[in-house]
């Protein structure tokens, strides 16, 4: 008699279940845990920022500010003067002070950082059509300082890199990638909220200062034009700032709700200053 081994039954050591099901359950589970964790951490860090004195922020920022700024020129003084004029309208806490710095670089941006330091780049400044738009820009950055946004972002950034370092030490880079991108995207939504809040408060201020909100729309329109030139299309969730069209719409809605005038007389940037900018 010839020997014949029996056929091995299938499905004992393996499973027929579609791995997509397992993938969906695991990924959604992990992602929701990370989002929940990021939200809890972010909210509690935002809450703790009120206990960190502003002077501490200033002392952290000082070495960097000294390193990256040159001697103050007439443009710095002009920007500072303007900022000093509008800060009383923005109800800043007593211990806060705003220091505006002009940076002679072709970057179309402005930023607020720790210790009330605001940097305005030449690239953006030379594009601004009026002083109203500049006041809006300063108001937007001052609101960031007032609401301690730079400090909050720094806090969150540190915690997220600490956590991903923890997890990263244990698993593969793909999974760490999933975790940290989920964390980053969650934090970006915080960043978009901060931008909207800053737009809002700056618009309130500019309405008090000029009696209309034309500067807001002007600034955002300029930014939108710059964006159109370079933008290769980014989805909303990947942006630190809300879509510019959305921001313009938001300002228009707020103005309408409060019966503010959207258009009005604009003030030009003094010729002396615009010449100084263009000559550099």
């Amino acid at each position, binding site marked *: 008699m*010839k*020997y*014949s*081994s*029996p*056929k*091995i039954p*299938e499905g004992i*050591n*393996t*499973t027929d*279940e579609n*791995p*997509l099901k*397992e*993938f969906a359950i*695991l*990924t959604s*589970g*992990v992602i929701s845990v990370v989002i929940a964790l990021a939200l809890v951490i972010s909210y509690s860090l935002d809450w703790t920022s009120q206990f960190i004195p502003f002077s501490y922020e200033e002392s952290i920022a000082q070495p960097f500010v000294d390193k990256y700024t040159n001697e103050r020129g007439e443009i710095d003084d002009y920007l500072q003067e303007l900022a000093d004029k509008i800060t009383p309208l923005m109800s800043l806490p007593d211990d806060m002070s705003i220091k505006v710095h002009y940076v002679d670089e072709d970057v179309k941006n402005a930023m607020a950082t720790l210790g009330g330091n605001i940097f305005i780049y030449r690239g953006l400044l030379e594009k601004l059509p009026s002083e109203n738009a500049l006041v809006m820009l300063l108001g937007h950055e001052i609101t960031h300082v007032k609401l301690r946004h730079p400090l909050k972002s720094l806090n969150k950034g540190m915690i997220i890199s600490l956590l991903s370092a923890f997890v990263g030490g*244990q*698993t*593969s*880079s*793909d*999974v760490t*990638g*999933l975790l940290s*991108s989920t964390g*980053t995207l969650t934090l*970006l939504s915080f960043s978009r909220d901060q931008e909207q809040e800053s737009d809002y408060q700056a618009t309130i201020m500019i309405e008090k200062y000029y009696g209309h909100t034309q500067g807001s729309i002007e600034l955002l329109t300029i930014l939108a034009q710059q964006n159109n030139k370079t933008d*290769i299309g*980014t*989805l909303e969730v*990947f*942006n*630190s700032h809300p879509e510019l069209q959305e921001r313009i719409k938001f300002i228009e809605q707020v103005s309408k709700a409060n019966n503010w005038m959207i258009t009005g007389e604009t003030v030009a940037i003094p010729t002396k200053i615009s010449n100084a900018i263009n000559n550099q």
Partner: protein
Amino acid sequence: MEQFQYQIIFFFVLLILGYFFGRYFEKKHYKSIIKREAKYSNLAVIAIKTVPLSEPVKPSILVTGSVVISVDYFKRFLAMLRTLLGGRVTAYETLLDRARREAILRMKEEASTLNADKIFNIKIETSSISNNASGNIGSVEVFAYGTALVNVN
């Protein structure tokens, strides 16, 4: 952030590619395994160490079969998620199942060309082949070996 966006798209493309190619090759492999298992079903593979006395005296020879199989990107990602949460790593189970059966089949093929009809003392060794710096298991080698009794006439 644009770069980040493309990173995520790239990641999903890899996952999708891994899933479809992995599924395709796995199905194809199982088909071939089942077919060849039937073909070699007359060749007995026995785990006992010593040849029973009832067996006629025949020359013996070492037969081996070895196979290296890699997981796809999708499966590896799934398995790594499992390392966070625990549980049965089904993604790797089919990989090892295929590798073991393929190694035994290759050993049988060798025995068959040597005109053997029984293989005794079969052993299976498994080793992982690390394919990146952090030491993740990307592919697996399974090596099966045993003593074949060869028919000389």
